[in-house]
């Protein structure tokens, strides 16, 4: 059954492509917060720089369809949506749709979590999701 093989491959490819509408990301893509470090204690009332790291993948602004790219979203005290889900845009989900790779942030005193998640041109989480480790910082 020689000509069944391509069909099987095609079906397998569709099944493997994940949730409908989600963009594929390289399996070795690596997203991380370069600064601040996990556990950092930061002075209150003073903005600090957050630096976004991305490896084995590129940056493209929102609305730009380019293979193996996405743009950064910084989650503050929030969990990332699942693959194929749209990332909300609010005070806890900051979008960097102009291709920014760092930002200045000021947070109220207390403990906060920070996490990066890549979104595709429509702010959807990739398959597999490209997320950083969630870090905790203390502002005081």
């Amino acid at each position, binding site marked *: 059954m020689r000509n069944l093989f391509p069909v099987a491959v095609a079906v397998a490819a569709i099944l493997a492509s994940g949730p409908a509408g989600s*963009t594929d990301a390289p399996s070795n893509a690596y997203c991380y917060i*370069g600064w601040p470090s996990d556990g950092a204690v930061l002075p209150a009332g003073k903005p600090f720089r957050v*630096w976004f*790291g*991305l*490896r084995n*993948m*590129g*940056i*493209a*602004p929102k609305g*730009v*369809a*380019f*293979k*193996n*790219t996405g743009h950064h979203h910084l989650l503050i005290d929030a969990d990332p949506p699942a693959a194929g889900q749209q990332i909300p845009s609010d005070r806890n989900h900051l979008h*960097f749709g*102009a*291709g*920014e*790779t*760092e930002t200045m942030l000021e947070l109220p005193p207390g403990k906060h979590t920070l996490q990066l998640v890549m979104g595709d041109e429509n702010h959807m989480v990739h398959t597999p999701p490209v997320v950083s480790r969630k870090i905790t910082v203390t502002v005081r």
Partner: protein
Amino acid sequence: MRFPLVFPLLLAASLHAGTAAAATPTPAPENAQVYFIWPHDGTVINGGKFWVRMGLRNMGVAPKGTAMTHTGHHHLLIDTDLPPMTEPIPNDRNHLHFGAGETEARIELPPGTHTLQLLLGDKDHIPHAPPIMSKKITVTVR
């Protein structure tokens, strides 16, 4: 299926480049800054393989062919001086292009002293006005 969409965009960009790009440089914010996060000036690298981390401030990264205000993509100049600022940045062993929007690159250099400098290019690989370039740093491989 994003290839069919990308191709016309690139085609349109290259057609546009032929007509107007040389005459009107892409403006960049006055406070834009490109810099090396790593390595630092004077870093000694054992073995010669290292990640270059490219930093950009007050501006965004976009792949080649993308016309979006206040964006560009990184070019790493190795052991070379700045190219002409009104032409596309050369594409060779001394001028590495990161047209897929990369912000980090794995580099391998032979033993010795090497200079590294970052230069941002617009959608057609032409430096902005004003040109956004880093300090030229020196690293030693041994």
